[in-house]
């Protein structure tokens, strides 16, 4: 709860600054790329999390990475602030809170669409339109793949889930068989 609250405070401050400079979405995208990099590079994650490494060394390494990623000044500064405050481990929570605040500010919703195989662009567009019609708000999709679904699509918007996967249908069938 405390971590969530802290992440929201950071996210709210970043949203205010990004909104002023009209960089809400680019900042979110760059933060997402940095989070993905940390996920992909375990050594890098351990390096930033190691308390025995001097903070200035961490900042030096970060600056090199930020340069390679060509991060915009706002994103770059924000991440450095987090790093210097020893809160880089909260980055993922900050990103989620930031995305939620940006969506709220722009009056839009994020739909996480998971499918067994990548969806065609036109299918994604039709799905987005359907969701907008239903919810009366602008919707943008975040596509994910999960072969475990076997087939079909699962859409999650906030806490609401529209599960049309074959996996779920098989599970329902199994429940019916078990109940007899």
């Amino acid at each position: 709860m405390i971590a969530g609250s802290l992440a929201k405070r950071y996210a709210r401050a970043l949203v205010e600054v990004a909104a002023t400079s009209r960089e809400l979405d680019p900042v979110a995208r760059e933060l997402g790329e940095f989070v993905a990099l940390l996920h992909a590079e375990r050594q890098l994650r351990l390096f930033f999390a190691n308390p025995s490494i001097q903070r200035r060394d961490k900042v030096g390494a970060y600056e090199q990475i930020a340069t390679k990623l060509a991060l915009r000044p706002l994103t770059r500064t924000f991440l450095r602030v987090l790093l210097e405050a020893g809160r880089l481990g909260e980055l993922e929570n900050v990103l989620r809170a930031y995305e939620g605040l940006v969506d709220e500010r722009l009056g839009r919703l994020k739909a996480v669409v998971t499918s067994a195989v990548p969806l065609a662009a036109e299918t994604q567009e039709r799905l987005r339109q359907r969701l907008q019609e239903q919810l009366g708000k602008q919707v943008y999709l975040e596509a994910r793949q999960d072969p475990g679904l076997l087939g079909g699509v699962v859409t999650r918007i906030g806490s609401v889930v529209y599960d049309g996967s074959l996996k779920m249908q098989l599970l329902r069938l199994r429940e019916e068989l078990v109940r007899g």
Partner: protein
Amino acid sequence: MARVSGWFRWAAVGCFLTAVGLAPALVEAAAEGGSEEQGIINLNITILIQALNLIILILLLSRFLYNPLKQFMADRAAGIERALAEAKLARESAARAQEEYRAQIVVTQREVGALREQAQREVEEERQRLLRASREESQRLLAEARAAIEAETKRARASLREEVATLILAAAERLLGRSLTGEDQKRLAEQYVRDLGGKN
């Protein structure tokens, strides 16, 4: 005792009358004999003296033998009567005691009978109680056993159904994983979008 004294008196009177009755004959016989020769019995003064002696003897006997004997007999009779009375009293007492004993035996027998009946009743009640308890216990055990069997059967069926369902699900997943084509995936996604629109 009265009968004995009467008999003795009549015997004395008989002896006297015999002596008086025989006296003339004896006198005549003595006269005849005296005239001719000495007979067996000679009527003379001796006879009279003997008769008188006899009478005196009878009187003496009556005075000194009969009366003490009569007294003795009377005492003996009184003793016997007393003994008989005592015996009668003892017999009556014994009879009363016997009656009492008999009555007591009857009462005791009744009490024993009542106690026996009560004991039998209590035994029967206890037997019935034990029988009821045993029956209830057996019914309870039977019900528990039935419930346990039913629960176990249900559990086994559920487990079997679950196992079968899991196997079916795994088989279906394998089959779908092998048989679903890109076209099928596309069709499923399109179907999903259509169904989503229909949920309004």
